């Protein structure tokens, strides 16, 4: 098991408020890590540490280190980092313009203008997102009319167009119907071979089904979120060490 992301003693504040406290984890490469925990337990905030988008939202302070492939994030160009770490949100955004434009946004931002290159990237990304065959005849049509599930897979294709090493899914299926959810889960399973995936989920069955490792976070008395337990998904779901983990996954709190 190769480590992809090492988080050392990470602390995060939004203004004066202590949000994440003493996070120490190692995310394995080419595997799916699920992040679970009650609402407000800092799951989204943790994800946003990995692409440094917290700093766009409010005044933040971070201590500790996040290291991806041996390189400390703090010293990287945030724009470049965000192109290598993709984020998929709960509500997929279909940007103005065609499906093609929606997928080509990322490469264009980074200066790729050549039409043939873009064609190749768009086709590849849509194929990897299991959407190309479904939409190949209407790439030039507006993206607005796609179904929720298609929009979400288009958002995944948009992230894939930048060829990211890490993909972050923040409750990416919680607005989707069961069939679309199934498709995205299948997709996550396939994307594992090329990317490292971290997914936040409120659905325990999904976390158990899809992930290799599970991270359980919880807010302590003082209001800051900590890691309660982190380990192989099998173990967390069948034989958790912490009593709080067991209570959370069996639905008795949170």
């Amino acid at each position, binding site marked *: 098991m190769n480590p992809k992301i090492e988080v050392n003693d990470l602390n995060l504040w939004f203004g004066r408020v202590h949000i994440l406290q003493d996070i120490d984890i190692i995310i394995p490469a080419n595997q799916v890590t699920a992040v679970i925990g009650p609402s407000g337990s800092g799951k989204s905030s943790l994800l946003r540490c990995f*692409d440094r*988008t917290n700093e*766009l939202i409010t005044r933040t302070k971070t201590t500790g280190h996040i290291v991806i492939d041996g390189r400390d994030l703090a010293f990287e160009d*945030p*724009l*470049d*980092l*965000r*192109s290598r770490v*993709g*984020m998929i*949100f709960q*509500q*997929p*955004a279909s*940007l*103005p*313009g065609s499906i093609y434009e929606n997928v080509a*946004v*990322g490469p*264009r*931002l*980074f200066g790729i203008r050549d039409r043939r290159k873009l064609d190749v990237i768009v086709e590849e990304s849509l194929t990897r997102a299991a959407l190309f065959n479904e939409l190949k005849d209407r790439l030039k*049509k*507006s993206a*607005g*009319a796609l179904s929720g599930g298609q929009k979400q897979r288009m*958002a995944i294709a*948009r*992230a894939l167009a*930048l060829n990211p090493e890490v993909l972050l899914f923040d409750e990416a299926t919680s607005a989707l119907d069961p069939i679309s959810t199934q498709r995205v889960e299948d997709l996550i399973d396939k994307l594992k071979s090329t990317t490292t995936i971290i997914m936040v989920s409120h659905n325990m069955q999904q976390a158990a089904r899809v992930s290799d490792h599970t991270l359980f976070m919880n807010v302590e008395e003082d209001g800051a979120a900590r890691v309660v337990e982190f380990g192989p998904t099998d173990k967390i779901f069948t034989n958790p060490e912490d009593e709080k983990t067991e209570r959370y996954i069996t639905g008795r709190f949170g």
Partner: protein
Amino acid sequence: MRRRVYDRIVQIILIAIASMMALFLIYLVGYIIGSGIRGFSFGFLTRAPSGITQTGGVWPMIASSMYLIGLTLLIAVPLGVGGGIYLAEYAGQGRIVETIRFAVDILSSVPSIVFGLFGLALFVQFFGLKYSMLSGALTLTLMVLPLLLKISEESFRAVPVTYREASLALGATKDQTIFRIILPTALPAVFTGVLLSAGRAFGETAAVLYTAGLSPTTPVFPLDGGRTLSTHLYLLATTGKIEESFKVAMVLLVVILVFNVLSNVVISRFRRRFIKEAR
């Protein structure tokens, strides 16, 4: 049961009010067209007025109106849309921005005759631009700017945050996000504001009277004077040429109707292109 009777009564009252308004509108349009159509010929649109009475044609007025609107939009749209982007995306909060907003709100409720006087003093006299299309356009710009600013600012604010998040998460800079994602999304709404401004400028009389002048000639250069349709109408009516006034009123009305229909078509096109699918 009583609730249903109550609902029914409210409904009847509302329908009555709505049909009264519709009837009044139809009556108004019918009356103006009915009065204007008498003795109307197509040549009225293409001829210049003649004689000391300045009657018999409105071509220079149509030209002046179009010239003035074009020039006004040319100046006002970059300022208004640029200012809207600034207020929505860059300004943040603070005393200065609050002051700007307050000033804009005040400005939007100033009567247009005051703009006319101000334009006369500043552009016509102080800057020596004379009674001209340029003086008129600058004055109209001041007049429509609050509306344009407000509508563009609101259009930018109305773009869902999810678009912003998605763009920033891809590694876009703030400027890229604003100009490649937010601006195209807000464009249809901004366009509505531009059309509203054009409509106001077209119908405006008082602000134009003192700044663009009354010369019944076709303007060519920005420093040429001219007489718009609405000022022409005002002059005719105040000098008792009622029959001729109605002809001009009809032309104004028809232009505004055509303009509205066209803009509705354009807006719904826009909407369809951006929001729905044109299968």
